[in-house]
């Protein structure tokens, strides 16, 4: 395969690394058509083809200097064949006809090895999709030199303040196309950019991060300054006893915790009785101020507007005023439940079914400042870390605070606090939300990006304290 790239000149006049380009959509369609043509000769009853292409770059820095700087280009062709009520998938990154034929045959060989599945559905036919435009030329054209200069400016802020910076500046392009032997064809492309920075002022640290389709949606220097100011505030942390505290959770902290809730909204998860929503649908579960929608077309979301079978993603109201109202369905789980598919299925075959991937919380009119001002005694939480599930039905999660935990007293941030371990039920937490900020696109490290607000939560349970 070819990777066409354009070259440019840096302002210093030196040669520069090229920025990546993707194949035109017609080339992906050609690959799909080739597979569908070859599959006709192999005995497959039906065939589905995914083509995914990425061109990503990431500049990584630590100790106020770039230490890793990478670029990658890759294209995968994933083929699912159906034969006599059996299905299986084979994937390759080689796109010559021999390799594609070998992948088709591998898929068929896997399919033949299993018992018939009487519930296996035929492939879907043509679908209609709402267009989304998430491909930004300026982001696609970002060069290593531009990332390096932005990193240098961020590191200069650290050096000026006697601090040490570490982080990443990443940008990339990706596209997906899906076609099948019943005439379905779907295609999507996007750009993405991300800047994340940790500022360390011994022994403390703080952090800021942004992620968007456009590199112009955030300012790396502004993020660097914010992390720098908070790192300075975080020095001289005092130890507080564990216990229940009112917390003001920044959006990233909310995101990384609630991110563990949403696989439970899969219809298959309820059928498997591994969801916390078993026996709880339609009953008040969260506070009345909690409403959550899955919406792939929301302007702050990224991701394809179709699922792993090519079904258009629908907007689904998951939680309405504290009551879990709807689940998401793949074609298979929808048929079992006598519902319509919502366009949330994973590529088949798989055992997990589906999941909402474009979550949007309803926000409120508060702000971090208002939340702090209304708090007599509480904690401001920058982010959470290493979150894992302790109790799957009560949705008790454990994890640590990280990179900036601050005491609020009589409406003001008064000091830094040593990091806590929490053991907290997400269900209980979402019953205890007192204030919400506006919903923003948040990014963290434990969950995929969502549109979530900052939250003020009462009685958040911290069980132990660490040494810093």
């Amino acid at each position, binding site marked *: 395969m070819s*990777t066409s790239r354009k070259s440019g000149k840096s302002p210093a006049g030196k040669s520069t690394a090229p920025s990546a380009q993707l194949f035109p959509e017609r080339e992906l369609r050609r690959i799909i058509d080739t597979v569908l043509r070859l599959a006709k000769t192999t005995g497959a009853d039906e065939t589905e083809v995914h083509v995914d292409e990425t061109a990503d770059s990431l500049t990584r820095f630590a100790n106020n200097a770039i230490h*890793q700087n990478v670029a*990658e280009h890759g294209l*995968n062709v994933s083929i699912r064949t159906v034969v006599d009520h059996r299905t299986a998938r084979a994937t390759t990154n080689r796109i010559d006809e021999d390799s594609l034929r070998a992948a088709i045959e*591998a898929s068929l060989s896997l399919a033949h090895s299993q018992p018939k599945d009487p519930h296996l559905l035929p492939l879907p036919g043509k679908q209609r999709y709402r267009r989304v435009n998430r491909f930004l030329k300026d982001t696609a054209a970002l060069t290593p030199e531009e990332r*390096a200069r932005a990193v240098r400016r961020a590191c200069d802020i650290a050096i000026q303040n006697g601090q040490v910076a570490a982080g990443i500046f990443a940008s990339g392009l990706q596209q997906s196309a899906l076609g099948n032997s019943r005439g379905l064809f779907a295609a999507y492309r996007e750009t993405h950019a991300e800047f*994340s920075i940790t500022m360390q002022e011994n022994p403390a640290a703080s952090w800021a991060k942004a992620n968007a389709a456009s590199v112009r949606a955030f300012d790396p220097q502004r993020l660097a300054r914010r992390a720098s100011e908070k790192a300075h505030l975080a020095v001289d942390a005092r130890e507080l006893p564990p216990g229940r505290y009112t917390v003001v959770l920044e959006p990233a902290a909310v995101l990384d915790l609630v991110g563990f809730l949403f696989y439970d909204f899969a219809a298959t998860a309820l059928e498997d009785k591994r969801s916390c929503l078993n026996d709880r649908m339609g009953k008040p579960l969260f506070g009345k101020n909690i409403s959550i929608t899955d919406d792939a077309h929301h302007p702050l979301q990224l991701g394809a507007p179709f699922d792993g079978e090519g079904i258009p993603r629908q907007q689904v109201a998951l939680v309405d005023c504290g009551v879990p109202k709807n689940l998401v369905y793949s074609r298979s789980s929808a048929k079992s439940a006598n519902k319509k598919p919502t366009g949330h299925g994973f590529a088949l075959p798989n055992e997990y079914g589906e999941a909402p991937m474009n979550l949007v919380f309803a926000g409120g009119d508060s702000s971090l400042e208002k939340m702090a001002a209304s708090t007599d005694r509480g904690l401001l939480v920058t982010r959470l870390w290493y979150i*894992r599930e302790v109790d799957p039905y009560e949705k008790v999660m454990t994890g640590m605070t990280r990179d900036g935990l601050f005491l609020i007293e009589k409406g003001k941030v008064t000091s830094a606090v040593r990091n806590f371990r929490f053991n907290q039920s997400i269900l209980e937490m979402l019953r205890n939300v007192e204030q919400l900020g506006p919903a923003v696109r948040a990014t963290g490290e434990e969950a995929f990006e969502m549109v979530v607000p900052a939250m003020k939560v009462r009685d958040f349970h911290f*069980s132990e304290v660490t040494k*810093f």
Partner: protein
Amino acid sequence: MWDLCTNALDTARLRGATYADVRMMHLRQRDLTTKNGQVGTLAQSESIGIGIRALAHGAWGFASTDRLTREGVSACAGEAVSIAKASSLAKRGDVEMVPEDAYVDSWQSPFRKDPFELPLENQLALLLAADAEMRRIKGVTLTEAGLQFRKIDSWFASSIGSRIHQRKLITGCGIAATSFQGGEIQKRSYPNSFGGQHALGGYELVESLDLLKHAPRVGEEAAALHSAAQCLEKTGTLILGGSQLGLQIHESVGHPIELDRVLGQEANFAGTSFLTLDQLNKLRYGSDIVNVVADARLEHGAGLGSFAYDDEGVPAQCTDIIKDGQFRGYLSNRETAHLIGLKRSSGTMRTESWNRLPIIRMTNISLNPGTWDFDDLIADTDDAILMETNRSWSIDDRRYQFQFSTEMGWEIKGGKKTRMLKNPSYSGITTEFWNSCDAICSRDHWTLWGTPNCGKGQPMQTMGTGHGAAPSRFRNVKIGSAFSNQ
């Protein structure tokens, strides 16, 4: 393969690289899973490409491509050098590497039965049979079984003259039963949670673990946990089963000894380490009986951290990490070794795939066996909780404070296992925990466990690591805090 590697190195040199290395890799994987008596995932994949690392203007650049032609590889090598030059716009000194010899070698991990060559029907039949055995048990509401096979070829070449081909065959398997009852979800797994056991080797690993034999017990224990007593909150004696101890080693020894973390290179994501450079040879990490090694050599075992050479062309080694309780060593690479006074890398640079930069990684980080027989250890213990099979794990970003919970616990009273306990958990501070170790079982009870899902780096890389462990006893441990306030 070697022609393309040489082409990449030549291009990198001509474009201005003072050092370069390349990894061409061909990865093949097959995944088979069943759920509730039906086939779940049935898929295989292959990926081939080349990753090129270049040092130019004293800084690193890395580029990768799946376009395996002379033109494609040359363009990729040129891009790696250009990126290195861009890196030098924000450097604070030139990269220095400790010397290493050049090697020309070929190596293959040992196996007896290649799973890619065996009938798929038999593999699926085994999973469906184990699945059926678990589903026979009343109260079991979800059954899962899985097999995973990986074959990885890598061709490493460097500008100092190394040419190393390695082939690894990796096998993994496991089963799990879940029971939902009365507003509670309980689960049991075998031989380990989160996918089971993984190691270098072939289908003989699957046969040796006898999934079918263990399936009824797994189902029975999942159902029985609902009526078991809740593990109480207290400070007391803890005995850890081998697989849980393996994960304890991974999180509280393996990660903090990664020298890139110690030096702040992972500060933005994976975190740093409490093991600052001044702690080397001074810190009492554990009690006198605690001896931990980082051993990538095959003689240590066919673990997920075993190889002949790392992805920087350095031969596999055994490094003392904790010796008689004292902290003795880090995991290093050619760039960081000199910072701790070493003349040579400890050989721990590893990459997930051709499109990822090698970074410092755990190899097999193992607790050396002790002298106790397991039955004698139980008999010697008056009051304790025995915890088996990980359920959740979490540790802070400097690797001090941890909390683990396991699928099942047993109360030990008067030297005997008495009753089953549900929802067991324990927590602590790393060095306090390891210093409280007073008994380690013998080699007869020692297993080299595989952790196939260790995440690190940006972009994220998932790596398999090995952890040899035998059941061990720890005193004065905080038990039960995960459920203390629910």
